[in-house]
């Protein structure tokens, strides 16, 4: 850790970035964020803070060299150990999603495709591999990893993806294998995951040359739990009529819970968001002005068309009030326990919606449909996310036939604009909206 690195960091991040943020706040105050429709409530005030948090996080990464060890991790990885060890953590999936929102995917993923990676591979993986090969990104350059951590609780693609990263960067890779949960997990399943998390500790310690402090780990787990609980409460506020926050707001506001879990700033951010949402409820403000129908969104968002969907539904008087995807980062909060951090991490990370059966996900959809007073479900059949999309045809049919719940299967891709046809999507959405009686 050279003094030069610290001075560079202080000058650029602490002084430079702070001045830039102050300038940006002044500029944004003159140009408030707005939708292209009068049918949506003005964007949340915390939007600007979210952008600042994420921008600072990536800026931090530019000057991390020589100050901290860097880990690249999957979105559902037990990151608390790395946070407690002081790693700077990058989530390639989040990075890819930012590239998606900024419509940079075709250019960056193209670099991976030119190198022989098939279009059938997940567009997150293609985006990040393309970024790795070319250095292209929507957030400047990413710091090179010293350690990789992949957990198989979201898909099997990460296994191969992280092996490629490990080969390319020549750094150690920790894999946490989580058995798939068909009905309920067993003690042996938990023991198996717990043992792997314990085994990962000396590897992570060795890379960063630090020892894990149990007290620090407890503190990080507590902050992870606090932030997740706040996030869950924010999502639950969507049960109010009119819903104060939409799933499209949640897709943006979920960035810190994924990217910056286990940090005090993340807890403070969600406390502020909860206050703003409660203020909206108090003042009777809905995310959609004149809310007429309420929908649930299943699967990842279509990052490159967030505004399109938000404005389309808003104009129709439809509020998409909940999503199984954003819910996944809140529903596990009760499982975390700072007094038994490793065991509780095993229980938490074995249980995401993607590591459970299609029937279990249907149960989640049905429970949420009831709690959130839902009139219909949009199931995004995501070409890139096979584990999330498999079973959707059956889930859709069950909703329609068992619950008389209108449900639409919408084919697209969370990141790749080439798998999205606006005209085809519009005709399906229009017909679905008419079916809802609007």
């Amino acid at each position, binding site marked *: 850790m050279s003094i030069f690195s610290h001075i560079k960091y202080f000058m650029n991040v602490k002084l430079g970035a702070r001045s830039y943020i102050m300038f940006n706040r002044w500029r944004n105050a003159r140009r408030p964020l707005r939708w292209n429709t009068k049918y949506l409530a003005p964007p949340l005030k915390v939007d600007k803070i979210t952008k600042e948090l994420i921008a600072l996080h990536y800026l931090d990464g530019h000057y991390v060299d020589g100050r901290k060890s860097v880990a690249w991790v999957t979105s559902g990885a037990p990151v608390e150990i790395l946070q407690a060890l002081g790693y700077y953590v990058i989530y390639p999936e989040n990075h890819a999603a930012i590239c998606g929102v900024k419509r940079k995917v075709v250019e960056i993923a193209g670099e991976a495709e030119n190198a022989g990676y098939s279009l059938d591979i997940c567009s997150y993986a293609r985006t990040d591999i393309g970024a790795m090969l070319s250095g292209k990104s929507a957030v400047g350059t990413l710091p090179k990893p010293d350690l990789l951590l992949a957990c198989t609780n979201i898909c099997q693609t990460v296994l191969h993806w992280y092996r490629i990263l490990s080969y390319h960067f020549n750094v150690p890779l920790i894999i946490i294998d989580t058995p798939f949960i068909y009905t309920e997990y067993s003690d042996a399943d938990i023991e198996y995951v717990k043992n792997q998390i314990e085994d990962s500790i000396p590897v992570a310690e060795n890379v960063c040359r630090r020892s894990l402090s149990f007290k620090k780990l407890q503190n990080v787990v507590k902050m992870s739990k606090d932030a997740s609980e706040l996030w869950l409460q924010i999502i639950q506020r969507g049960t109010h009529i009119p819903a104060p926050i939409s799933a499209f707001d949640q897709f943006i506001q979920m960035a810190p819970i994924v990217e910056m879990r286990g940090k005090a700033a993340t807890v403070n951010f969600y406390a502020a968001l909860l206050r703003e949402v409660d203020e909206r409820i108090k003042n009777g403000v809905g995310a959609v002005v004149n809310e007429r129908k309420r929908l649930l969104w299943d699967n990842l968002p279509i990052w490159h068309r967030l505004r399109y969907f938000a404005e389309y539904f808003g104009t129709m008087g439809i509020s998409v009030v909940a999503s199984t995807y954003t819910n996944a980062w809140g529903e596990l909060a009760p499982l975390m326990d700072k007094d038994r951090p490793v065991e509780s991490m095993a229980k938490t990370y074995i249980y995401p919606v993607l590591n459970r059966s299609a029937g279990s996900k249907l149960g989640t959809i049905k429970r949420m449909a009831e709690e959130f007073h839902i009139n219909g479900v949009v199931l995004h059949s995501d070409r890139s996310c096979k584990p999330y999309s498999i079973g959707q*045809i059956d889930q859709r*049919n069950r909703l*329609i*036939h068992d619950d008389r719940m*209108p449900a639409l*299967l919408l*084919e697209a891709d969370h990141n790749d604009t080439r*798998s999205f*046809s606006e*005209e*085809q999507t519009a*005709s*399906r959405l*229009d*017909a679905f909206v*008419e*079916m809802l009686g609007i």
Partner: protein
Amino acid sequence: MYSNLEALGIDVGSSTVKAVAVDGSGVILWHHMESAEPRVVPQVDHFLKMVSEKFGDISGIPLVATGYGRRLVHVASKQITEISCHARGVFKQLGHGGTLVDIGGQDSKVIIISSTGAVEDFAMNDKCAAGSGRFLENTADRLRVDIDKIGKIALSSTEETYISSTCTVFAESEVISKIANGIAVETILKGLHRSLTLRIVTMIRSLGSLPPLMLSGGVVKNPAIRYMLSEETKEPVVLPDLPQLMGAYGAALIALT
């Protein structure tokens, strides 16, 4: 003679443009159909001029537009999707619900219509022309066969070749290869119809078919599609009068309400 005109419907499709005029009880007074021009707005103006010539002043007559070009019909009081319009038109004509298959030029739709005429569920072919009329048009063109005759020619064949591809562009290459291998045109055509039919049947099964099976849209004129759909689903196929006009008719009925 036409003073009882109460509503108009126009269906601006990808292959054809159709218009229907109805009286207060939904009886068709007039209808017209033309091939779709690349410029929608002048063609719609031309249609409206024809209606005016027939019925006199049509200002104040409600008009609903449907089809892919519906948003360009600026004089329409409302734009409604083909799903709702076809369902409304067919339900009014046949008087019962069921599973409606509408095979259009650009896409195909399967619509479940309840016993009250409401759209209960629908499916559309994916982002590919292989489930649409364009699939047949393309390959008919490649085989130099008149589109209006391909169904009859296909049915005349006692043999059938398997077209493995479900992509229109790849199917064309497959057809070329089969021609090169000396396979008869009628045998290839029968295989093509089977390929399209099986895609439609998959859509029907994905929704869980509600009998009877009904058909609308331009491809209904093709006897091979009618025959094969019935053969594959083991259901008789029911056709409304003027199946190609069901979208425009449904639009007129919606305008009426």
